C-alpha cells in the first residue's frame, strides 16, 4: 500500500467537509471555539518555517507528533454490535491485513482507541455500548458502519433498534455499504487515519463539550442508562 506521508491538501479538505455534515444537526453555540478549530492547514504550513515558532505553534507541533502516533497505532475494540462485523475478520486477516495500518484487535475497552459500531444497535446493546465508550481512555474514536448507524437502515421501523446513532455517542467517520466490503472498511480506516493525523477526529472532545446533550438523548431512548445485570433465574 502506498504510504501517504504527505497528506494531499484537497483530500484533507474533502474530509473536513464530510465531517461537518455529521455534526450539522447539533444545536449551535454548544461548541467551544477550540474544538472546531481546524489546524490541518497550519500544520502543513508550519513545516516550512519551523524555526520561529510561538509557544502556541510549538504546542501544535507537539500535538501533530502526538497525532501521528495516535493515527498509526489504532487499537480497535473487539465488539461486534451487528451484521457488519462479519466482514471485519476478512479485513483483519490475511487478504486485507489490517495490521499493515498498525491496527489490531484489543481485548478490553481500556486498551482500545477505536470503537467500531458494526451495524444496527438494539437498545440492549446501546446501553452496554455507552458503558464501553465511556470506559475507553482518551483520545478515542468511533466509526459507524453501514446505514443502520446513520438512519436505521433496513431496520428503520423496528421496535428494538435505534435510528440515529450520533444522537447518543459522537461518530468520527461513517463507512458506507450494507455491509461495507473489506475494501471499503480499509479505505474508511485510511480516511480515519488521515483525519486523526490532521487532528480532525474530535468526537471525544465533542462528547465532553456536549455531555449534557448526549446524556439527555440517551435517557430519552433508554429510560435509564443503568444496566441491571441481574442473574436471570
Amino acid at each position, binding site marked *: 500500500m502506498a504510504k501517504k506521508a504527505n497528506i494531499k491538501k484537497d483530500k484533507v479538505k474533502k474530509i473536513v467537509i464530510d465531517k461537518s455534515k455529521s455534526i450539522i444537526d447539533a444545536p449551535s453555540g454548544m461548541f467551544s471555539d477550540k474544538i472546531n478549530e481546524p489546524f490541518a492547514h497550519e500544520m502543513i504550513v508550519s513545516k516550512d518555517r519551523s524555526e520561529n515558532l510561538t509557544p502556541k505553534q510549538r504546542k501544535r507541533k507537539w500535538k501533530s507528533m502526538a497525532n501521528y502516533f*495516535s493515527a*498509526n497505532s489504532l487499537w480497535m475494540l473487539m465488539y461486534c454490535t451487528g451484521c457488519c462485523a462479519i466482514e471485519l475478520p476478512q479485513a483483519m486477516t490475511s487478504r486485507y491485513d489490517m495490521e499493515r495500518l*498498525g491496527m489490531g484487535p484489543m481485548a478490553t475497552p*481500556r*486498551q482500545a482507541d477505536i470503537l467500531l459500531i458494526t451495524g444496527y444497535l438494539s437498545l440492549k446493546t446501546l446501553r452496554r455500548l455507552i458503558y464501553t465508550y465511556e470506559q475507553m*481512555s*482518551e483520545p478515542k474514536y468511533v466509526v459507524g458502519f453501514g446505514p443502520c448507524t446513520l438512519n436505521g437502515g433496513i431496520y428503520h421501523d423496528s421496535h428494538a433498534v435505534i435510528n440515529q446513532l450520533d444522537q447518543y455517542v459522537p461518530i468520527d467517520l461513517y463507512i458506507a455499504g450494507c455491509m461495507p466490503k473489506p475494501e471499503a472498511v480499509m479505505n474508511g480506516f485510511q480516511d480515519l487515519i488521515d483525519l486523526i493525523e490532521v487532528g480532525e477526529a474530535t468526537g471525544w472532545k465533542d462528547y465532553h463539550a456536549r455531555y449534557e446533550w448526549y446524556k439527555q438523548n440517551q435517557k430519552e431512548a433508554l429510560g435509564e442508562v443503568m444496566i441491571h445485570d441481574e442473574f436471570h433465574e
Partner: protein
Amino acid sequence: MTITITDFLVAFGVAFCGWALQTSVSGITRKTVARMQKRYGPKWYQNFRDIFKLLNKRAITHGWVYDFGVIMALAGIIGTAMFTPVANIVVFKGYDNFFVFVYLFAVGMLGMAMSASGSGNPLASIGVMRALTQMVGYEVPFMVIVLALIHVRDTSSISALVDIQQASGWNLVVMPIGTIVGFICLMGMLGKKPFDTYIAPAELASGPMVEYGGKQLGMLMIMHEIATFVEISLFVNLFLGGGSNILEFLVKYFIVYTLASYVSNVLGRFKIDQVVTFYYKIPILLALIQAGMLVIFGWGV
C-alpha cells in the same frame, strides 16, 4: 570495586538499549510471523509507535496502589536490566550474580501483581493468580537446571559463567537436555503460547492488564519489553555462551527470540492446570536427569 556515576549511566544505557533492541526485534518478529500467517504484517517499528501512542494517551487511575505498582514494576525491571551482562559489557562486575536476577525480577513482578490487584477487576485477580501458579510451574525445573549448572561450574556469577563457556564450550553442548528444559521454561517466562494462560484474551481479556489503558499500559509495555530482554539475555548467557562481542550476542539473541515466537505461533493455549502438570511431568524429569548426569556422574563437564 567502586561504583561511579559513569557506571550508572552505562547501566541505564544497557537498560535503554535493551528496550530499544527488544522492541525492534519483536517488531521484526511480528513481521516474519505475519508471513507465516500468509499476510504482510505491520511495519517493523510498529511497537515503538504503539508505546508512544499509549504514553500520549490520557491516564485514568484506580487508586494509588494501581499507579504505584506500575512504577514499581517498571523500576524493578529497569533495575534488573542494569545488571544484565551484554557480551563484554558488564557494568557492575561482581554483582551480576544469578540470584540477584531472581530477586530483583521478583520486585518487578510483585509490582505488577500489586497494581493489577489494585485495579479491582476480578479478571485481573484471576490473571495474577494464574501468573503466580504458572511461575510455580516453570521455576522448579529451571532452578534445578541452573543450580546444577552453578554446582558444576562453581560460580553463580553470570559473567563468570559466560567466560567459562567462552573458554571451554557452550553449555548447550555440555548439557543439551538442560538447554531444552531451559528453553521450555523460557517460553513460560516470556508468556509465549502455549504458556500465555494468564493473559488468555479469550476468557480473561488479557488478564492482569485488563484495566490498564493509556500511560500505565505504555509503561507496562516498556516493562514487558525490558523483561523479555532480561530473560532472553539470561538464557543466552547461561546456555549459549553469551557473546564475545556485541554482534555475536545480538545474533544469538535474535535467534532465541525468533525461535520462541515461531514455536508459539503454531501452538494453542494450555489451561492453567495443564500448564502446571506439563511442567511437573516432562521438564522436571528431564531436568532431574540432566542434573544427575552433571552432578553425580559428571558427564560432559
